[in-house]
């Protein structure tokens, strides 16, 4: 029961302070789930993120379900998801019910401009940490660079690049293994 409550709280925190898409939750996710609680490793986060991109649904919810399910089974997955969506439900309903033209309020715009800068800084730091774990040789740097360039300059949906990268991983590693075996023989 205690851990279920903790799952709810952690993901409510993440849902309540994520400005932007699923990537924007990474800094808080890293801090709460990897560093403070050891619920998952940085590598696992990257797996969840990649799979979350290629499976239907909201990436943040997919990640919450993954971690919740890993900790406490089906109930854990559901509780983590409820935590993740709870702040949205409350905040959006309040705004929709009471505040007209919320987005035109000047100080809201300034606050959001400040938060955007902060999200950049936090994501930059998160990416550096993740890169150290996931970019481990020439091939991974190549895949990384290819994905960055292709997603910046084409309009193809990102799950296509994820699938290609997974296939590239299998091909590259198999070839490397073969050439190693040949050298030995």
């Amino acid at each position, binding site marked *: 029961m205690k851990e279920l409550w903790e799952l709810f709280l952690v993901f409510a925190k993440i*849902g309540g*302070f994520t*400005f*932007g*898409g*699923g990537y924007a939750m*990474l800094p*808080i996710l890293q801090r709460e789930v990897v560093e403070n609680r050891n619920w998952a490793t940085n*590598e696992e986060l990257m*797996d969840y*993120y990649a*799979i979350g991109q290629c*499976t*239907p*649904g*909201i990436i943040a919810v997919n990640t919450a379900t993954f971690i919740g*399910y*890993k900790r406490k089974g089906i109930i854990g*997955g559901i509780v983590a*998801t409820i935590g993740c*969506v709870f*702040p949205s439900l409350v*905040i*959006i309903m309040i*705004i*929709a019910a009471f505040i007209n033209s*919320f*987005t035109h309020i000047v*100080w809201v*715009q*300034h*606050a*959001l*401009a*400040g*938060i955007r*800068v902060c*999200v*950049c*800084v936090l*994501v*930059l730091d998160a*990416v550096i940490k*993740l890169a150290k774990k*996931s*970019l481990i040789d020439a091939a*991974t740097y190549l*895949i*990384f660079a290819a*994905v*960055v360039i292709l997603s910046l300059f084409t309009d193809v*949906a990102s*799950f296509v*690049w*994820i699938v290609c*990268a*997974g*296939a590239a991983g*299998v091909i590259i*590693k198999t070839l490397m293994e073969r050439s190693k075996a040949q050298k030995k023989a």
Partner: protein
Amino acid sequence: MLIFRLFWEFFKTGLFAIGGGLATLPFLYDMQASTGWFTLDDISNMIAISESTPGPMGINMATYTGFTSMGVIGGIAAVAGLVTPSIIIIIIVSNILEKFKTNKYVQYCMYGLRAASVGLISVAGLRVAEAAFLRTQLFTETGSLMDLFNIKAFIFGVVLYVVYKKTGKHPIIYILASGVIGVILSL
């Protein structure tokens, strides 16, 4: 029962929208046209509000449209519909992954996937950076390079990074502080 239809419509969205919040948009336009539960104006309001409030965009959009269509219960039904496919699919994927985790080829695949993930997050970060540090709209109006870069925001970003690396407090603290600083500096 209208509430079940709301759940069902968002269930379909959750099942077929791949790739995060914005991927749900085309489904919402379809839903608007076929049900008339909310207006096109509601959709543009919804996008603006979802982008400027915390929480996953898809969830914000579902809450807003559900709430405008059918009040509090509508908001809850829409969100429940949207997340149900995710929960089912991820639990299945999670089981498969656990079973084949030690398989050589699954590990090779993950080796490629992780690099791609880092790439996609970097790209997402670059897009926020563009919004945070560049004023493309002002630039197209005046054509002056000085107007393109938001120097104030850039200096704030550099200072914030140094402070974050030095102090290393919880990310939420910096998010809150940055909102306040944004208002003070009128960024």
